[in-house]
């Protein structure tokens, strides 16, 4: 069925990281990513790795959940190391495999890039692991708020995102219902090769899309009936805002950026 892979999926908990404002966390991740691209030595990388490890520990997110994201990029990491380390008859070889050899500097570069990818994935997944999708949508809205000046409908985009999140389970249920109905009439979704299987899904997707359009229309009417007229002038039940802790976190990450990018 509609299996959600669970990569970076919100893990509810009450931790200082969870309590940070979503906009602040987005800022922290952005600054951290810049630092990751400015860093040019293993010392700086070690500092950043320690930061991620520390934040993970404080967040009380199970290491397993963080590691799940790494599994997805494990292949890329291995390829990065191999592609950098293997040379054709290099001068300073560590290990020779016929004309191919593992090159010392290449290996260092490969590992450096691989660790960088690893930190990028774990650092950013910590954002989605500790922030509920709705808070994240609200955070994105506030971070992008300046774009309203150039007429980007930031609020409407955030509303669209929230509604999409709201309808994921409903749509999954609907798809399940349609599949059950098709199976009752003899359809099979796991027989044959990949092409036959993909084709079996067409009679599911067509009614599903039909349903989605019908629902979108009905939902628009219901939203209008509840006085929705675009995001302008809307207030919120919970007004998120940056508090002292959020500014401290942002400032600390900024300092980290300077230390790693300039000093190390």
């Amino acid at each position: 069925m509609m299996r959600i892979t669970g990569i970076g999926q919100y893990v509810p908990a009450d931790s200082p990281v969870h309590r940070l404002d979503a906009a602040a966390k987005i800022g922290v991740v952005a600054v951290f990513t810049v630092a990751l691209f400015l860093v040019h030595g293993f010392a700086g990388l070690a500092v950043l790795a320690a930061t991620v490890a520390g934040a993970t520990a404080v967040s009380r997110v199970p290491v397993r959940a963080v590691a799940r994201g790494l599994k997805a990029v494990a292949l890329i990491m291995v390829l990065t190391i191999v592609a950098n380390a293997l040379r054709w008859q290099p001068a300073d070889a560590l290990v020779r495999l016929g004309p191919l050899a593992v090159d010392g500097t290449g290996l260092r570069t490969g590992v450096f890039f691989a660790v960088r990818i690893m930190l990028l994935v774990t650092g950013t997944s910590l954002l989605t692991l500790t922030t509920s999708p709705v808070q994240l949508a609200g955070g994105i809205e506030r971070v992008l708020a300046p774009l309203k000046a150039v007429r980007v409908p930031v609020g409407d985009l955030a509303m669209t995102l929230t509604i999409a999140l709201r309808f994921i389970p409903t749509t999954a249920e609907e798809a399940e219902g349609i599949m059950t109905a098709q199976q009752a009439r003899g359809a099979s979704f796991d027989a044959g090769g990949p092409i036959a299987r993909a084709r079996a899904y067409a009679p599911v997707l067509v009614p599903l899309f039909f349903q989605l359009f019908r629902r979108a229309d009905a939902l628009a009417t219901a939203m209008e009936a509840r006085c929705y007229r675009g995001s302008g002038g809307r207030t919120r039940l919970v007004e998120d805002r940056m508090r002292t802790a959020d500014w401290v976190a942002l400032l600390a990450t900024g300092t980290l950026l300077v230390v790693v990018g300039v000093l190390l």
Partner: protein
Amino acid sequence: MIRFDSVSFRYRGDAPLALDGVCLALEAGELVAVVGANGSGKSTLARLCDGLLEPTSGSVTVDGLDSVDPASLWKVRSMVGMVFQDPDDQIVGTVVEEDCAFGPENLGLPSDEIRVRVDSSLRAVGLDGLERREPHLLSEGQKQRLAVAGALAMRPRYLVFDEPTAMLDPVGRRAVLEITERLAHAEGHGVLVVSHDIGGVARADRVIGLAGGRVVFDGAPEGLMDDASMLLRVGLSLPPAARLAAALRARGLDVPAPAADAESVVASLWR
């Protein structure tokens, strides 16, 4: 008062009239049921009440405000709460309290005022304690009550329900119908309920019957229940107990009219 003044409506220029010269009034504190066969114009009537549709001719006013005048349209929509048939078509929030807050948020109210309204609306429909629950984890009946709470949070004077119980089991149905009755009779809202549910019709102060876009009946539920040909015309069939009651009444026995269930027929015979 919601007032329809010879309202006609067609969906497209060449389509037949979905509503034809409808005149009606809904007062505050009144519970009115709207019945009619499929396609008789019930949903069209409901959508005209708060300016979701614009009359082709005639006018709809809410406490004197024109429902489609751009100057009063949003005021009208905040005065008339709507609840539709499928709760999944009207829940926009990812958790219960967030959905309930959607209307007040659109009205631009301050956070603490929204909080007060959300709490009281959820309490009014018995969903307090489920504030942080995700809507897809609610039963259909709870979802529909959430839709009612979302409408109530706008503090409307009128509420319009379009077949609110069609997707519910008997328990959920009774709960929603009880809420409609309480909102009208205890809290003084003007409530219009489109319903195929004979139980909902029996509770109403007044029934409006539609056929082919015209009002063919406007009166007390007893009058409708006793008129077999009118019942047929508006696509209603009585449950066996009510049919028995009507037959007994026709032969001069004193059985109270909105007797939709066996219990009340027995009670009135056993005196």
